[in-house]
C-alpha cells in the first residue's frame, strides 16, 4: 500500500500531539470524514477539532470537501482558520 503524509497546522498540532504523521490508509477510509474518524481513534477532542466545519482539508494541495472520495493521496493537510497578515 502507498503511504500518505498527514499534516496538522496551528492549534491542531497541539491537539494531535504532532505536526506530521506518515500512515497507510486502510481500505475502508474513503473520504476525509472516514480519515478523521480513523486517525482520531478514541481521542475525542481531536475528532471534534478536525471535524469542525471551519477546518479545511487540503489533499495534495487542493482544498477538498470532507465528503469527497480520496484516491491514493500523497499528502493530506488539516488547516484551521488562517490568521496571517
Amino acid at each position, binding site marked *: 500500500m502507498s503511504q500518505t503524509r498527514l499534516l496538522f497546522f496551528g492549534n491542531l498540532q497541539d491537539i494531535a500531539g504532532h505536526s506530521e504523521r506518515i500512515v497507510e490508509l486502510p481500505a475502508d477510509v474513503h473520504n476525509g470524514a472516514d480519515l478523521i474518524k480513523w486517525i482520531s481513534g478514541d481521542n475525542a477532542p481531536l475528532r471534534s477539532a478536525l471535524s469542525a466545519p471551519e477546518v479545511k482539508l487540503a489533499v495534495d*494541495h487542493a482544498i477538498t470537501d470532507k465528503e469527497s472520495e480520496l484516491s491514493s493521496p500523497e499528502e493530506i493537510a488539516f488547516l484551521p482558520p488562517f490568521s*496571517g*497578515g
Partner: protein
Amino acid sequence: MTAITVQILKADLDADHHLARFRSSNKNAGAIVSFLGQVRSENSHVRALHLQHYPEFTEKRIYAIADDIVARFEVDSLLIIHRIGRIEPAAPIVLAAAAAAHRRAAFECVDCVMDYLKSEAPFWKQEDSSNGQRWVYPTSGDSADLQRWGENCTKETA
C-alpha cells in the same frame, strides 16, 4: 502583463530595502502604494509572534490570490512579502506594494491584497506572551473586510 513577486521570508523583513527596490524597478509608474504591517507593541505582554505556513502550498495560494487580483486592477507590478517564524514587537510581518499608472488602481489593489491575505492565505499565528502561548484566530472584522470586495475584487457598493 503584470509582474508579480511573492516572497515568504524566514529572516527579518527589511521593508526599506524591498520598497526601495520595488520603486527603482517601477520608475515609470505614476503611482506606487505600499502597505507595511508590523507587530503592534502597545500590548507589552506580547513577547513575539510565531507565524507558521504550509511550505509550497502557502506560496501557491498567495500566487493564486495575486493572479486573481491583478487581473482586476490596472497595475504594472505587485509585490507581496510575508514573514514566517518568530517576529518581535515592532518588526514587520507583511509588505505589499503595487505600481500602476493611476493611483486609484494602486490603492485598491493593495487594499484588496491585504484583505485577501488576512483571510485566504494559509498562515497560522501564535502569540508568545507572559501568559504563555496561544493560537490567534481570525476576527470577524477580517471576514467583514473581505466582504467589501465582490467576486471580482471590485468594491461592492453596499
